Structures are given as structure tokens and as C-alpha cells.
């Protein structure tokens, strides 16, 4: 576990994640208080990454549950492997007949089979899904429940029980209690408001888009091979794009993609043509592309004007 807030920042940095003090504090609190974290924020600000890095920096396993509409207990918690059970009964047909040898009447036969119940309803035939895996894991783990807002309200209610007690009851096996209480990270894109009950159990963390310096630091960390000038220009452009009213605002991941793409193309500094050619790495909708292009034209013009005046002043000096 972490020893202090600084420790969190340091270890996250080692794993290539720049955690602001605010984020680090919440992480530290969660690990101390053993409470789940509910992370909210726009798409592409590193919510899912946060969980991954948390696991990596603690050396824990990460177990991930991706939510979607219609996700149910069977997919999230555990399922009986019917096919395997069936297969075993087929193979063991002879053995089963042996058990039944000499049974008088149906009642006795059923009783004998019933005595063998636990063979078929043992952990051997349980197919553990992420939640059960997290609970029964021998190692301490980080459980990431991704995009919880996509799941139904019923699933959320079911999750409540799990998050408060960290135990699961499988009727045939009894109650399984977590050996290590996992660190839970829930992420949400705010497609739907979470219930108050769930929110009450969690620490809330809202991650917004980073400011310019932060984003620049992130770019340098993740794409160290990018030219300094290029990184600066890209970050400036993306920051200004975020101010526009776009359908999908570019996140940090888009910034990184763009820098990577431009670096691959061996670009040192942005120009009009390149920008319009590679724009689709950051802006994903037709309408957005048009708007972004307008903005970028302005940007390039401004930069050129600035360069022009600089050159002009040089000449003045020469004269």
C-alpha cells in the first residue's frame, strides 16, 4: 500500500502516469479507507488508465469488468458450466450406474444420486467471472468496473451488496468471503446518473481535461521522441479545439495519438496541409472536422503572422 500522498504521485510517475495532487489524494484515501473510487469525467482523460496504473504501481493483478446494457450476474459474477457438467455425466455414466446398483425403487435411486450432489456443484464446475475472480483471488487485486453507467440500474443495485460486504453467496457452495478486499475503481462517462446509494459508498473523483502545462508534461512522458516544438504546438491546438462546441471533444488519448502520428511522419512543426491531412486522428465527426479546420486555419495564420513580425524585427535590427 501507499505510505503517503507523495508516494502515490511518485509511484504513478514511475508507471508513466502524471497524477495531480488531487487525484493522488483520492487514491491514497481509497487505499487507506478501503473504499471504492467512482471516477467520472469526459471520455479520454485517462479514467481506465488510472486503474491500470494503480494496479501496476502496487504490483497487484488487475481484474476488469466491462459493463454494457444487459450485463447480468451470470456474466459478471459466476456461472455454472453446464456443458462441462453434462460432459462429465456422460463420461461417468458407468460410475453413476455403479452408484445406482441395487437401488430399490426410484426414491432410493434419487437419494443416492443426491448424496453425490457436491461432486457436480463444486468449485470445479463454477466458471468465475470478474467479480468472483476478484473476491476469490489469492493475491490482492484491483477491480476495475468500467463504464458502469452503461449497465442497467438493477446491476448497479446488485453491485451495492458486493461493494459493501465483499462477499458472495452461491447457493450450492455457501458464502465466499474475500481473502483480500480488492481496491475497486468504477468509471463512468455520465451517460446516466448513478444512484445515490452507490455514490454514497464510493469516493468521488472527477477528472477534467488537463491544462496546458499538464498536458504537455503528459505528452513528453508518453511520447518522449516527439520534438519539443511539435508537442507544444499540438497541445496548444488541442486546447483551443476543446473550447469549441464539438460533438466529441478530443481527449488526452487523442492528443497522444496525434503526436505519435506526426512523429511517425517525422514532422517537426505543424503546417496547414499536414494538419488537415491528419486531423481525423483527433476529431471524429464530419461536422467537427469542418469546425476544427476553421479554427486551425486561424491558428496557423496567427502563427505565421507572429513569425512574420519576428522576422521583420530582425531585419529592423540589421538596419
Amino acid at each position, binding site marked *: 500500500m501507499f505510505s503517503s500522498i507523495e508516494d502515490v504521485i511518485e509511484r504513478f510517475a514511475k508507471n508513466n502516469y502524471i497524477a495531480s495532487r488531487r487525484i493522488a*489524494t483520492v487514491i491514497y484515501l481509497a487505499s487507506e479507507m478501503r473504499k471504492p473510487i467512482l471516477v467520472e469525467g469526459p471520455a479520454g482523460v485517462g479514467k481506465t488508465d488510472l486503474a491500470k496504473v494503480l494496479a501496476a504501481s502496487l504490483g497487484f493483478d488487475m481484474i476488469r469488468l466491462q459493463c454494457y446494457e444487459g450485463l447480468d450476474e451470470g456474466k459478471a459474477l459466476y456461472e455454472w458450466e453446464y456443458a462441462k457438467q453434462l460432459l462429465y455425466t456422460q463420461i461417468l455414466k458407468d460410475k453413476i450406474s455403479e452408484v445406482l446398483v441395487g437401488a430399490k425403487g426410484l426414491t432410493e435411486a434419487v437419494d443416492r444420486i443426491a448424496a453425490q450432489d457436491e461432486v457436480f456443484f463444486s468449485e470445479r464446475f463454477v466458471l468465475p467471472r470478474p467479480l468472483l475472480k476478484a473476491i476469490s483471488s489469492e493475491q490482492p487485486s484491483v477491480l476495475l468496473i468500467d463504464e458502469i453507467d452503461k449497465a442497467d440500474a438493477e446491476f448497479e443495485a446488485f453491485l451495492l451488496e458486493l461493494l459493501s460486504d465483499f462477499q458472495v453467496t452461491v447457493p450450492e457452495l455457501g458464502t465466499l468471503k474475500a481473502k483480500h478486499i480488492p481496491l475497486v475503481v468504477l468509471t463512468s462517462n455520465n451517460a446516466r446518473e448513478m444512484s445515490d446509494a452507490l455514490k454514497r459508498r464510493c469516493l468521488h473523483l472527477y477528472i477534467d481535461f488537463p491544462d496546458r502545462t499538464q498536458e504537455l508534461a503528459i505528452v513528453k512522458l508518453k511520447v518522449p521522441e516527439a520534438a519539443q516544438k511539435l508537442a507544444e504546438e499540438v497541445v496548444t491546438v488541442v486546447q483551443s479545439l476543446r473550447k469549441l462546441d464539438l460533438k466529441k471533444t478530443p481527449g488526452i488519448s487523442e492528443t497522444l495519438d496525434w503526436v505519435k502520428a506526426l512523429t511517425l511522419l517525422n514532422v517537426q512543426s505543424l503546417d496547414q496541409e499536414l494538419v488537415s491531412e491528419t486531423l481525423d486522428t483527433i476529431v471524429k465527426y464530419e461536422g467537427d472536422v469542418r469546425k476544427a479546420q476553421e479554427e486551425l486555419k486561424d491558428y496557423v495564420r496567427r502563427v505565421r503572422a507572429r513569425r512574420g513580425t519576428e522576422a521583420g524585427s530582425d531585419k529592423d535590427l540589421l538596419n
Partner: protein
Amino acid sequence: MQDKLVEFANLLRENGVRVSLAETLDAFSASQITGLAERDAFRAALRSTMVKRSTELPVFEELFDIYFSGLGEIIKQASEAVQNALSMSDQEFQKFLDEVEKMLKKQGKDLSELAKQLLQNNSGEMERKIREASRAVKLQGIERTIEENYFARALARALGLDKIEAEIKELREQLEKMDIGSELKAKMEEYLERRLKALDDIIRRYVRMEREKRDIKQKEDQRLNQIGEKSFYYLTEEELKKMNEAVTRLAQRLKNVITVRRKRAKKGRFDIKRTLRQNLEYGGVPFKLRFEKRKKEKPQVVILCDVSDSVRNASRFMLQFVYSLQDLYSRVRSFIFVADIGEVTECFRNNDSKEALDVALKGDIINVYAHSNFGYAFRNFVSDHIGSVNKRTTVIVLGDARNNYNLPHDWCLREIRQRAKKVIWLNPESRNTWGFGDSEMDRYGPHCDLVEECRNLNQLYRVIDRLVAG
């Protein structure tokens, strides 16, 4: 600390943030982990435990600043003001304070505690004292500006301000007799006077701040309410902007309610085919049952929006609503009309709201400067676009039904209604005026399933509620 957190939680609640008891407890244990020394960590601890909605974050930030730095900040500012008035640097001031302390010792007179702290610039203790006193006079109950004076006086009394005044006066008299340099004496004198004033100042500002704490949300609420009741015809630019936000939220709400209803009835009849297929892997033993998925009935909406001059303001706003709806649903077709009728579905789909509205109202699609002619518009709709209406379609007409004495052609509306699931007419005019002058509302009304007056945001809210419920 506990008291302070509980009070802060109360304050958050008063300002509309829902904080439960369990969350307050969490906040307490979290703040013990982070400690109080480091402000940012403490702030993050409270934020993550007490505020669970991102929309409530700004309220929290504001209140945190007021509450946890408020008094300390005021005291600090007051002492800085004194320092500036004496025009001393930090070092000089510190030296000066030492002098003051020496003088106080020489006096050998017992001052009251607060006076001592005040003169020695001991802000932490002063803060504690003032907080204590404010609890004694129940300052937390302050609500109105008018009460500020009363509470300021009460607080001063509780702190024993008159006693301190007397003490400082005495000090000044003694200072006269003392044998120290005249320059220092003058400085000392000024210091005493300014300090006394500073205390008074602190009290007043503290009282005002306490009142403001309780005010933030109230003001916001009031303003939104006022907008809600104001007729569309009289909105200012600023209000229009606010209104747009409200409308977008409204449309979102409409969508949320509809989605919830759709989900509730998700499972349909038993599906034999899929059950058999799914269970083939178990040798045909039906372990897993499959049900038909109900077809999601996507709401189909056709909107006819009057954009003539007589309803200019209202229609702008209505179009905004139409735009938000279209953004949320895939099957909305939007038409605008004055006398001609034209479809704006595509135009809304491809532009952002402001552009779309501008295009719609500029007159490229239809002539918006003509005289309204509902009859003509309806007849054209029936002949050209009746295909867009089927038995699952809800038709919404937004308009004032002022037909300029043209032929009303109300049979067209009847025909639309026969094909549609529902016809709803929202009229931005007051109900009293319907049917007077050139208003044809009485003629059109009988052909609608629902006719509503929709002059302001609150009425629109009510209509939406009824739509969703019905």
C-alpha cells in the same frame, strides 16, 4: 473539527448539495488521514467524500473557500492592512511586534486575552475566539442583509469589544508617559488605533461572509424560477442563453424518462427457436431460456413550427427545443412554416444549434417575411409530406394559429390526426386571446388530442411531464 465538518455539511445541504450522514462520517475519517495541515489534500478529501455529482463541484469549491479560509483570511487581510498602513516590510513589522510585546510586558498590566492576541497579531487564537463568540450569538442563523448590523453588534458584545476599547485607550494614555523615542511612540500610537479598527472591521466582514454563504444557491434558484415564469416574448439576450441550457436539459430529461420506460418492458414472449439453438451445446436440455426482445419502439415525432414574425421570440426558443429533441432521437422530422412549409431536418442534423437556427430563420428554406397562413401550410404539408406521418407518429404543432383571415383548411389537420398517433398543439399565446381576431384556435383545437398554452418554460415543463406520463 467534528463540529466544523457537521456545520460545513449543513451548509452544503442548504445550498442544494445532498450530503448524507454516512458521507459526513467518511469526510471525517478521510480528513483524519490527510490531516488538516495541507490545505489541498484536505480539500480533496472533503470533495471526494461529500460531493458526488460533478455539477455540484463549483458550489463545493466556492463554499469551501468561504468556509474554511473565510475567517482566517479576513484576519490575515486585516493585519496586512495594518502593516501596509504603517508602511513596514515584513521584517520591520516583526521587529515592531516584538517591541509591542516588550511594551506590554513593561506595562505589567493584565490585558484581556483577546486584546493581547489582537496586539500580538496571534491570528489562530483570535480566529478560535471569534468562532466561539459567533456560536454563542447563533450567527449561523443569519439570513438577511438587514440582520447584519444586529449580528455585528451582538458579536462585538460577546467578544467584549467595549472592554478592549477601554483597555486600548488606557494603553495609549500610558504610552504618552512612557519614555521611548518619539518616532516609535507615534508608530505605536497609530498601531493601537488601527488595530482597534481592524477588529471592528473583522467582525463586520465576518458577519457579511456568513450571510453570503447562505445566499449563493438562493439567488441562483430565484433567477431560474423567474425565467421559468417569464413569457417567451419578453426575454433578453442573456435570458435566452440561459433558456437554451434549460431547454436542452429538458429534452434530455424527456429522453431519460422514455428510456427508463422502454427498459422496464424489455422481455417479451418465450422464444422457442432461440432457446433450442442456444441449448444445443447442452444436448438440447433447456438450461437457458430465451425470450423475445421487445422491439424498441422509437418515438417518432413530426414537428411543425411556426416561425412567423408574430411568434419570433417564442419560435426561436421552440426551435431550440426541436433541435435538442432531434439531437436525442433518430426519428424526428422538423418542418417550419409561415405560409410555405419546408423541412429543416437535414439542416438541423448537420449544423450546430446556433447556425441551424440562424439558417432556419434567415429565410433560405422558406420565405419568413410572408404573412402567416396556417391553412395554406397545412394543405401543403398534407399534399407533400403526409407520408412522414403514420400511426406511430406524434405530431406537434407549435404556433399561435393567427391565420390573417385566410382559409383555415382545418380539414387538413383532421386528416393528419386520422393518420397520426397523436396531434399536440402548443400555443405561445395566452389562452384568453384564443379565438379572438384572426386566431383560428377554436377551429383547429377540436382536431387535436391535446391543446396547451405554452408561454414560458414552466408551462413547457408541465406539457413535457404530461407527454411523458401519457
